[in-house]
């Protein structure tokens, strides 16, 4: 597979993975908040709501993609000029890119755009979703070490 195409596939796969995982985490956080109010949420209801919330993907995908494009370009420079484990760099970059974006959005809009990230745990879980995306991207593009 040509290098350029490999990066495109890596970016698309990473974006999709992070968006799905992030959406799932966010839904669990929202349900957890409801359960803290003694609201009963059976497993079937939880699953149904989790699947239904994937409806946010059309709005989430472009944002995550932009995060990763910026984050992975910066990572390419870090790998080249600082060195170290390329996969580790991308894992960190994925997490940092997602968390930074959410914090910037909150600073601009003065609200938390994704309810599941209102708590520190929710924010970190979204960062974890970003880290998974970074790992996916690194693995798919691992044979093109000179690239981003």
């Amino acid at each position, binding site marked *: 597979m040509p290098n350029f195409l490999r990066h495109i596939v890596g970016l698309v796969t990473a974006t999709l993975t992070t968006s799905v995982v992030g*959406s799932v985490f*966010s*839904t669990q956080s*929202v*349900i957890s*908040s*409801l359960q*803290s*109010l003694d*609201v009963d*949420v059976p497993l079937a*209801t*939880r699953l*149904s*709501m989790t699947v*239904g*919330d994937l*409806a*946010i993907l059309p*709005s*989430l995908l472009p944002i995550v993609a932009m995060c990763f494009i910026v984050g992975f370009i910066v990572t390419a420079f870090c790998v080249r000029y600082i060195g170290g484990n390329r996969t580790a760099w991308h894992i960190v970059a994925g997490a940092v890119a997602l968390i930074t974006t959410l914090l910037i959005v909150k600073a601009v809009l*003065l*609200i*938390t*755009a*994704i*309810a*599941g990230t*209102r708590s520190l745990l929710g924010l970190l879980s979204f960062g974890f979703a970003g880290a998974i995306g970074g790992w996916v991207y690194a693995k798919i593009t691992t044979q093109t070490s000179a690239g981003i």
Partner: protein
Amino acid sequence: MKKLSVTLLLLTGLASAAINAQHSATETDDYYTSVVASGFDQAWAHEFLPNGDILVTERVGNIKVVRDGKILSQAVSNVPESYYAGQGGLLDIMLDSDFSNNRTVYLSYAFGSPDGNATRLISATLDASGDSYSLDNINTLFTASPLIQTPQHYSGRIAQMDDGSLLLTIGDGFDYREQAQRLDSHLGKIIRINRDGSVPADNPFVAQQGAKPEIWSYGHRNHQSLVIADGVVYQNEHGPKGGDEVNIIEAGLNYGWPVITQGRDYNGASVTPYTEYPDMQQPLVDWTPSIAPSSMTFHLNKLYVTSLAEESIHMLTTDGETINDQGIVFEAIEGRIRDISVGLDNHLYVLTDGDQAELIKITQTRLK
């Protein structure tokens, strides 16, 4: 005689031109509108004084005075500083039901700083001196707790019950929505206090351990309307993406947010899997998609609800137990509409939104 007719015709034409210059009017078969005053910056509420002056609150922190169709150069002085950010700032104004004797006004506003802010209610006396007004004897009656760190969803609408006690809507602070269900928090509630800020002994949660005694109803999101008519308390509230509601409020009841709603988060995600749940009240009117209801008034046995997003006024009929949306009226009024009330002349007045807000009078030619 001919000369007299021509003179009268000229005078009539000149008078008409002069009126049109001051008040741009729009006319339909059933009503016409005229701009009373314009140029308000982020107007939020208005109130009519017995002498005909109109007080208009601006969210930026001013109370402007409209007299004879003009905004006086001097705003009401000694207005407490409010926290102007997001949806915060100076909000509602209401005269006490015994204003002609006690000159008392009530103001709600966002109080605090980015690190900690809240909806606050004060009382003050409105002193008149020459052409100007000032606030005096300012008393803080209530400040919502806990403080929040998002400048959103203050609500802040004030109403007065027949016994003189005050109702105030407190929003959920946006990021704190679950607190609307917690009785140890004022967020997402309607609170009821006496004129002096004390708690009425018959409030529903006075005797409940850990509950805020001021709470009168709970499970609300961002409720910017509160109207009492014939002893019935009507309220409406913004849902998120969908789920705008009109409710009849009764003491001690749970109106569901965020456990039940027809709305979804702005990004499309679920707020909750439920649209109904035991012991939670269903709205009497639901607007999905949202119209963003901003204000409401009761006039000639009908409720009128203004909207920001739909840029409209809805007329609703009610028998005190049910409410039916009759649809949009006064379509000639354009733009986001912030506030509506009934003037001393028994006509409707609306305030538009934005940095060049207008106060518009609606004259109904076929009152029903």
